[in-house]
């Protein structure tokens, strides 16, 4: 049974409702719910009793009643996904580069969003994940659980990541704000949407400029609100586009020599477009079943080979792959992730030689890709003239797409290198998403299962992966959580049990918050999440007191985040056959493959 205490934070009061009602972003929705009140100011003046009457529920009853209100979706979202957080002047609210699962509405006070280059190097490092001590490790070793998936169900607060542990105060906040440019945000505004909705790291550090009260809303809440109300969805989407566009342009090395006003000018002419489906995993599974995981059949074309290039393409989030036509298929040259750009070398070539070279390669969205398109005339007028000759030549020579494509076409029976073939394989199966993919060299693997045993010893006597998976030649991508750059497993989690470690980016499941709904297991395109039956100390399945159903928990690899020494599977392999690799770091992976 889910109790009130197991919600993310059950703090709910008339004050909280008032805060929510005063936000302009909620106005349109509120108007639907409460037609009598025309403005947020009016609503703010109402007393709790009026509010309860209007919303047709009793707040005090709701606090006592463990069941979620089922008659009002807005209230349900508020109950499940929001909490009020208070920050002192100088507290860091969110930190650039860290992963975040929530956005913040400002209820009162002011905050400062630091503009690039930001504070990232000045922040004290703090590890929010609790690791086992040596003594705890020895204790676990000495006294392992007798049965698989044995757990003490009454145990609370098992979350590996403590959200409160992240709070950092800057004593010198005044001088920090003096030294850095920032945007001041105040009551009624929202921030943190990009990371919350885009499944990407925070793009800016936000500091409390005064004492402030914020309504923190988890991304699940944002998602539900977007579905609930069209006006809210439009409002939040335009905010997302505007902020993510600017934030992205600020951080690009390509524009580093430009002034802030020049970047803002570029932003005005830059368009934002999403290619493919943000929830691409359903198509992926279907294509996998139908064996149509090839580029031309299942992927959205962004721009085709031979087209005239009119924009510079910047990948804001998601993945795209660059390929050229080869016989009757496509040969992948490389894939692009967040921060990469496409077409710069062609624009530079045309600009330098005053020619009209068309694109020699195609760009496809792999799953989905959020693309910013900067018109090429802007690049020619504002970016290229400011670049040094050597830098332009570097772009023209280092990324030899044109020559590469030409050479390949000249030789119809081109020998594919390991590099080419691995690229094809990794992008066909969408493994490029993985930041810690378990790669097994089956030519060295003796099938001893030491990796499996090591994994089980650290995780409730039950391994968190299968030594099985798709293979390219003698390299197997095992069924272990890859800690994806784009973790679609998080999309449908109703309680937020599956979350990202803010610092290192691992995807972890909080056992105590997991209600066993299987949403994440169903959403994971790679089938790397397994539902298991929780057992008590006698090895018997634990049943829910009310429903009499067996208690299920979602389990997956957590990269031994709580253990000393890192992933046990990799450390346990005696033959150097297993490695956790970041597929986006292709040279390192190829190096390992070619040992």
């Amino acid at each position, binding site marked *: 049974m889910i109790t009130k205490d197991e919600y993310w934070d059950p703090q709910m009061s008339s004050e909280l409702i008032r805060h929510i009602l005063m936000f302009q972003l909620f106005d349109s929705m509120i108007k639907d719910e409460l037609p009598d009140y025309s403005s947020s100011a009016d609503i703010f003046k109402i007393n709790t009793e009026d509010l309860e009457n209007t919303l047709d529920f009793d707040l005090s009853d709701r606090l006592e009643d463990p069941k979620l209100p089922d008659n009002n979706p807005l209230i349900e979202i508020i109950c499940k996904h929001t909490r009020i957080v208070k920050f002192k002047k100088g507290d860091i609210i969110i930190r650039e580069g860290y992963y975040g699962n929530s956005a913040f509405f400002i209820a009162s006070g002011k905050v400062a969003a630091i503009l690039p280059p930001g504070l990232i190097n000045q922040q004290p490092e703090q590890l929010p994940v609790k690791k086992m001590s*040596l003594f705890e490790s020895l204790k676990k070793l000495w006294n392992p659980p007798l049965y698989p998936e044995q757990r003490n169900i009454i145990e609370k607060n098992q979350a590996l990541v403590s959200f409160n542990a992240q709070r950092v105060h800057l004593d010198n906040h005044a001088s920090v704000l003096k030294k850095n440019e920032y945007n001041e945000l105040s009551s009624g505004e929202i921030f943190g949407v990009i990371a919350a909705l885009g499944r990407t790291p925070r793009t800016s550090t936000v500091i409390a400029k005064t004492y402030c009260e914020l309504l923190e809303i988890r991304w699940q809440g944002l998602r539900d609100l977007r579905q609930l109300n069209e006006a809210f969805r439009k409002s939040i989407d335009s905010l997302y586009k505007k902020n993510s566009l600017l934030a992205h342009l600020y951080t690009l090395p390509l524009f580093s020599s430009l002034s802030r006003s020049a970047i803002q000018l570029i932003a005005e002419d830059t368009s934002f477009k999403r290619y493919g489906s943000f929830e691409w995993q359903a198509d992926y599974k279907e294509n996998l079943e139908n064996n149509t995981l090839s580029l031309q059949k299942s992927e959205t074309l962004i721009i085709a080979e031979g087209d005239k290039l009119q924009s510079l393409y910047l990948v804001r989030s998601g993945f795209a792959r660059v390929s050229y036509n080869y016989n009757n298929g496509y040969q992948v040259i490389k894939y692009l992730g967040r921060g990469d750009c496409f077409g710069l070398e062609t624009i530079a070539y045309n600009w330098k030689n005053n020619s009209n070279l068309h694109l020699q390669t195609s760009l496809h969205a792999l799953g989905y890709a959020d693309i910013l398109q900067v018109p090429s005339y802007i690049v020619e007028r504002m970016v290229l003239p400011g670049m040094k000759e050597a830098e332009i030549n570097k772009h023209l020579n280092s990324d030899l797409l044109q020559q590469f494509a030409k050479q390949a076409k000249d030789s119809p029976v081109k020998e594919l290198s390991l590099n080419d073939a691995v690229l094809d394989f990794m992008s066909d199966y969408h493994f490029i998403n993985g930041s810690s993919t378990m790669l097994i060299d089956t*030519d060295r693997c003796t*099938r001893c*299962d*030491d990796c499996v045993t090591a994994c089980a*010893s650290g995780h409730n006597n039950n391994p968190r992966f299968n030594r099985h998976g798709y293979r390219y030649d003698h390299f197997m991508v095992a069924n272990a959580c890859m800690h994806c750059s784009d973790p679609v497993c998080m999309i449908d989690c109703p309680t937020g049990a599956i979350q990202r470690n803010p610092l290192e980016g691992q995807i972890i499941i909080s056992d105590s918050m997991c209600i066993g709904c299987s949403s994440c297991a169903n959403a994971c395109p790679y089938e790397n999440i397994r539902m298991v039956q929780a057992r008590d100390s006698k090895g018997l399945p634990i049943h829910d007191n009310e429903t009499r159903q067996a208690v299920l928990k979602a389990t997956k690899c957590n990269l031994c985040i709580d253990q000393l*020494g890192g992933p046990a599977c990799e*450390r346990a392999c*005696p033959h150097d056959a297993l490695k956790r690799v970041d597929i986006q770091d292709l040279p390192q992976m190829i190096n390992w493959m*070619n040992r």
Partner: protein
Amino acid sequence: MMSFNRRRLKNSLILIFVSLALNTFAMYFGTPLYRIQIWSGWILLTLILLLFLYSVRKKINLLPIGKASSWLQFHAYAGLLSSLVFLKHTSFQLPTGTFETLLAILFASTALSGIIGMIFSRIIPLHLTRRGEEVIYERIPAFSYKLKVQAQDLVLECTLQTNSTALADYYQNHLSGFFQKPYMPLFHLYGSMGYLHTLEIKHNTFCRYLNEQENQYAKQLFELIRKKYDLDFHYTLQSLLKTWLFIHVPLTYALLLAMTVHLMLIYAFLGHLQ
């Protein structure tokens, strides 16, 4: 990242250097004769205890005590070094007494089983990768049973559809044993396809007397035969990879026991030499 060849070269050079250093040490401090035996004996005992620690490391996965692969490298090269020290310890002579012979046989068989295991570990995975599907050892009996059921269903369906028991009779007389359970025939050790070829010839000969519809079923049956053959291949080689440790590890324990007795005997009867 260090390539395997470079690592092999580095470790071999270290092994040669340590062997030469130990030999120089023995020559310098080693006269009179018994001192060489005492020194080399203690070095051997230390090495064997260090080698034994590898099996302890394999059981301790939660502590940050180095990668198992580094331990295995040490285990392999220290094992080779211990063999050299053992030869020095015995002065390159065959043992004469019963206990010494037993001790020498235990050491030699432990070292030999280790070397053979290492060779298996390097060769067998290459063959496993290149034949059949990747299967988890513990699931092989279940896969074998599945194939048996599929084959039986197929011949039953053929009988029902064609009103002929020819394929069912053939299965009963020639294939039911083959599909019964996973087998470990020795010819799989060297990757022989001979038996499959024999089955194919027999099958093709039989197929000449079937009609077209039966032939379709016979073709599907032969696909199952091929799968079962590959499954047995995996079963044999994976069994080998798992079972050599059942020889190496008990031998190690026996060696440790015999060494302890040997040490006690040496110090019990060393008095007059000291």
